[in-house]
């Protein structure tokens, strides 16, 4: 579904991603772990199309199409979704109505008819239950005055409504207590399917107890330095990133130095 080949990206002239290679197949859940500043969130944002990041080399294919060539909204309509690390508060824009406009833009792109208000509302109610979101949050402006946990749940709720095929979760677990983490994870697990893939960006192994990944990758200094199964996350949890960083530095030393 998603093929990332030798991806390099910079922000304000600083190279953050230094050659990422990653293939995510249909239905797979990949986790990317790494310490602060390793480039995890940059990868998520580059995939979502944030303009502050400049891709200096490499390629990303989504179902064989050049993802990097698409505007952010086209990526969304094609089925790429990023749950934000810091969801933006948008005063004056209703959470539901905005979502209806978004969904209809997506449906139009996919050649589906627009949903009428009743159909939409019924669907929305059902998806809300999935993330145990209170109905009052529907009528409020997008994320305005939401608690940290409510914002993250709202992201998963948007995801559930838009039904993307490639879901990127940028540190969705950070700042969540155990209850909220469980709710968010249950929501994500309910959305897992053979035709939907996930890229979980996280700092903590904890999330992966709830959303069990097929593959775990460790990102350090803009590169994937190790890949493995779910047990890699446990190893990291045990040893910490610092050991890995030390090993990586050693490995990177020129031979004979």
């Amino acid at each position, binding site marked *: 579904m998603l093929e990332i080949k030798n991806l390099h990206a910079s922000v304000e002239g600083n190279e953050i991603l230094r050659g990422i290679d990653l293939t995510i197949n249909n239905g797979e859940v990949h986790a990317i772990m790494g310490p602060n500043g390793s480039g995890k969130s940059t990868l998520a944002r580059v995939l979502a*199309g944030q303009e502050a990041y400049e891709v200096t080399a490499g390629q990303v294919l989504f179902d064989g199409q050049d993802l990097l060539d698409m505007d952010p*909204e086209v990526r969304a309509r094609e089925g790429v979704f990023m749950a*934000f690390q810091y969801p933006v508060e948008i005063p004056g824009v209703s959470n539901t109505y905005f979502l209806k406009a*978004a969904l209809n833009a997506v449906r139009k792109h996919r050649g589906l008819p627009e949903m009428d208000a009743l159909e939409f509302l019924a669907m929305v109610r059902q998806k809300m239950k999935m993330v145990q979101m209170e109905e009052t949050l529907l009528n409020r402006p997008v994320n305005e005055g939401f608690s940290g946990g409510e914002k993250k749940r709202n992201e998963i709720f948007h995801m559930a409504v838009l039904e993307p095929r490639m879901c990127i979760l940028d540190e969705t677990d950070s700042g969540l207590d155990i209850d909220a983490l469980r709710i968010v994870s249950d929501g994500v697990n309910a959305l897992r399917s053979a035709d939907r893939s996930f890229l979980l960006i996280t700092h903590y192994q904890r999330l992966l107890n709830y959303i069990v990944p097929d593959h775990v990758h460790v990102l350090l200094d803009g590169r994937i330095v190790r890949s493995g199964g779910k047990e890699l996350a446990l190893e990291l949890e045990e040893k910490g990133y610092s050991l890995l960083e030390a090993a990586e530095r050693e490995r990177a030393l020129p031979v004979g130095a």
Partner: protein
Amino acid sequence: MATTMTEIQENATAAGAAGAAGVAGHLAEFERFQRELPAGEPGAVQALRRMAIERFAALGFPTLRQEEWRQTNVSAIAQGTFQRPQSDPDAVAAVSPELLFDAAARLVFVDGRFSARLSSVGQLPEGVIVGSLAQALQRSPEKVEPWLGQFARFENHPFVALNTAFLRDGAFIWVPRGAATGLIHVLYLSSSDNDGRATVSFPRNLFVTGENSQATIVETYAGTGPYFNCPVTELVAGPNSVVDHYKVQRESREAFHMSTFQVQADRHSVPSSHSISLGGGLVRNDVNAVLDGEGIDCILNGLYLLEGSQFVDNHMRVEHAKPHCASHELYKGVLDGKARSIFSGLIHVHKGAQKTDAKQSNRNLLLSRDAVANSNPQLEIYADDVRCTHGSTVGQLDEDAVFYLRSRGIGAEAARSLLTYAFASDIVERIKVEPVRRDLEEFLFARLPKGDVVRQAV
């Protein structure tokens, strides 16, 4: 230093009959105007006009050297030539339906003059008067004279002076003690004359609400072609009265609009003003509120949506003269193209006006590099136990918010429009008169690119 009538006469000859141009032209026009007035007008009104024209002659048009006008260049008005309209106000075939909505009473003025044919006043509560000021001056001068010209001071304001000098007609609304009016709509239509020359009108409105009364009044200004509109509205809000006033300015892009809205509030009254500026080329809205009784709760909201080379100056002055009053001002502007806006807001808390709660906020959203918004808040506080806050911002759309919306599938243009709409929406939502709010929403949907997406998303 007062100008003598002899000087006025001399200047009059210089201007000729081509219409009023410059100070001299207006003075000459004043003499012609005097001869057209009906006999038997109250002497006080005649005297008021005389004083006003003398004051205007002394003041002249404002220049950038004057503090109150330092950012507002009215030389195009000072140098312009304007015709006082001579056409029959009842000759207008019909009012464009988009300017109309259901109201308990509708007054229509064409180039400043009352059109009985286009107006409709249904059954009103006992004692309520909704009609033309000219008629009221003839039929019930005792209800007009005590108030007219008492609050909108012209000593230092050339345009109020000019309006007062030429005052002849406008809306007169009288709500007696305890009465409640339905929705009253006052519509002012202006246009250039049949030869395409710019006209000038001086609508003069007087609204008096008695103790415990309630009124909702919408003033709409609309027009075509070049003209100069110079309205003055005085609102005298009686004790414990609730008055919601809306002004929707959608003048032609070629129009000059220099208006003053003067609120004189008595104790425990709740006057609110919503000033919506959509049209006009060169616009100045003076809103002055004098809170002259305890326990007044005054709301002054405003929204200006500008593009092209439009210029709007909102000039606010709130006088807290008595203790325990609240005033809340919220003005928001959206500027595109090379538009320019000024917000000047003075809050003056008089000595002894303790427990004053005054809030003022002016927020501007610039949609283009060439748009400019200036904000000049000013506090003058002579009491020591008060709460006064002011804040102003000038900014662009939040790019993080634009990206967030795009990341959900909303197109870039629609995302920007949606955020622009959202910026304006808290003023829109404060409009309690449903047709006015709906019209404004429609205006925004039409103005904003991809307005259909915005309509769906709000």
